[in-house]
């Protein structure tokens, strides 16, 4: 499998902070400012959500963001334009549902299938994909297209994923693995489940970075999770909450962007802090 170099590089210097936003939420320009604020705040990779009308894997926070983005006119082509125009210096991962990937070829007059979408994504500078409704069993066509264009395909490992299914994913994953911290859908929660630790242990032998997501909302949590062995943390709902609060209070775009940047700084700092603690633990262990 191809490995995307930009993503590999993002994990090279230690654990990565990976924020998520729905592209186009609440509109094209604001959304650009928000994504750029995340980069400014210290994101190592950014997951960009291309909104799909039936986001079955999302909690209500991100679902509402997707509704706003769709109402704001976001489409796959506008998404690619957005990515092209984006002024950030971190690798970008496209998070969307399979039907949009599958249909894109046909919307351009060709056959349905993932090739056209991946080709165009590569063109605009996307480095990889997360597709929440595409389990490994159905992923071969997309995996092949990613390989052809040097893009990563990230899979989500759930607390319930075990045995053969882990094998299936390990064979197909590249870039990083998205470790789902707890059962349920996306959404900011304050608890960090014991399942995270167990999941990380189950994946110990995998040679891709393990980024933990679902329910992370503070620098403290980020630090604890990274200290427990994660190679990265993924944060979505806690950031989308800031966007939503901005929309609801009709706050100026730059103020919301600044709040996002601040939150990103907190989470990035937490990530580094966790890395430092882990190194200290390792040093302790070494000296013991």
């Amino acid at each position: 499998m191809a490995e995307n170099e930009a993503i590999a590089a993002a994990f090279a210097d230690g654990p990565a902070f990976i924020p998520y936003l729905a592209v186009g939420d609440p509109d094209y320009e604001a959304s650009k400012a928000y994504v750029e604020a995340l980069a400014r705040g210290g994101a190592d990779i950014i997951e960009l959500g291309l909104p799909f009308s039936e986001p079955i894997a999302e909690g209500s926070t991100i679902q509402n963001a997707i509704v706003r983005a769709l109402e704001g006119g976001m489409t796959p082509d506008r998404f690619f334009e957005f990515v092209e125009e984006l002024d950030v210096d971190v690798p970008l991962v496209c998070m969307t549902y399979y039907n949009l990937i599958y249909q894109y070829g046909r919307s351009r007059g060709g056959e349905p299938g993932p090739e056209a979408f991946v080709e165009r994504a590569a063109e605009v500078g996307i480095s990889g994909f997360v597709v929440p409704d595409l389990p490994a069993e159905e992923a071969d066509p997309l995996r092949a297209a990613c390989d052809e264009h040097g893009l990563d395909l990230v899979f989500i490992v759930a607390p319930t994923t075990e045995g053969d299914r882990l094998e299936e994913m390990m064979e197909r994953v590249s870039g990083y693995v998205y470790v789902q911290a707890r059962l349920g859908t996306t959404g900011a929660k304050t608890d960090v489940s014991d399942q995270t630790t167990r999941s990380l242990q189950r994946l110990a032998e995998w040679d891709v970075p393990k980024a933990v997501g679902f329910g992370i909302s503070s620098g403290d949590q980020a630090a604890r999770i990274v200290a427990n062995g994660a190679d990265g943390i993924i944060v979505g709902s806690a950031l989308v909450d800031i966007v939503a609060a901005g929309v609801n209070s009709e706050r100026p775009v730059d103020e919301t962007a600044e709040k996002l940047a601040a939150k990103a700084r907190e989470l990035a700092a937490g990530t580094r802090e966790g890395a430092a603690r882990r190194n200290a633990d390792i040093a302790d262990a070494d000296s013991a």
Partner: protein
Amino acid sequence: GKFGDYGGQYVPEALMPAIEELDDAYQRYVLDNEDGFMDEFRQRLADFGGRPTPLQRADRLSERYDLDVYLKREDLLHGGAHKLNNALGQVLLAKYMGKDRIIAETGAGQHGTATAMAAAHLDMPCTIYMGERDINRQRPNVFRMKLNGSDVKPVTAGRGTLKEAISETMRDWAATVESTHYVIGSVVGPHPFPAMVRDFQAVISEEAREQAHEKLGGLPDSVIACAGGGSNTMGAFANFVDDDSVDLYAVEAGGSSLAVDEEAGVAPNSASLSTGDEGVLHGARTKLLQDSVGQIMESHSISSGLDYAGVGPELAYLVDEDRVTPVAVDDDAALEGFHRLSQTEGIIPALETAHAFGYLEEHHAELSGSVIVNVSGRGDKDLQSAIEETEAREIPNAPDMSMFSEGI
């Protein structure tokens, strides 16, 4: 888990283990009758559900259309529609699997009421997700679910209809998958649901085929069933699929038009078999009402039970194979079918079912010999909408509608 290229399991990873566990249970209990599961299921369908349902010759329609019209009376099943066949099967299966909780989504409320009944009957705690707008449109069904002891959770996201309720149920399942079974209401969703729901509903055509031999002395020339998600359709077709001489007609909701409004993201119909394109929705690859880039369209039908942008993958496959003929009739024709059956046979059909009779009214000249129409449900739930929708249109066989408003 595939029907040609259709079907599959396009679901979040967290659900995959549950789906694999379900697939295993499906194979053992449903396909192999382990622990006598199918025997118990069939016995409960008979005693609790009221099976077999009759295959009734519709004398007056037969005369009117110069055909031998037979009605498969699923409207007589407990709850008033074919939905119980599936709900009872899945709730019982959940019990065999050791699950201790049931969840389901519902749009018009028919699947929800069937699930709530089955859950009460089998003593399983049950939560039903239902869009807030649907709750307001279908209060009697909400009352029924609650009276049966189910917890009905209003879904306020989006437009508050079936789509949002499905997403919310998926969310609940994703969080509770170890203890909970999600009772999907049609032959849709990831494998094994389409196959399993078909197998539970196949009792319709199993009986109908046997009854046809008794009453017609052989196979019918055609079988007609309305198609939304397609569970009554596949139930009515399943045992006739291998009988090449039997024509199978899936009647979709043509709504107000088969044309789509791409700009507004609206398909003013629910005719995914007739007009949809291949895509992935709610766990399966199938035919969908979608815009050119793959966003799911808002579908429309006077019948809320047909109002869905997807369709069962097996039906999509059978259409591609030319085994099933997809046809569509519009809202007006459905209302005409509604009044025709009510007036002529003394059976008030569900608006879903009325589409099959609208097709018969419009196209009976193209048919010949004997026809079985699946009366998938009764119309008690639809009285108000049928009257309102009829009043708003010119339906040739409508009764004098003034009598529904004036003086009473």
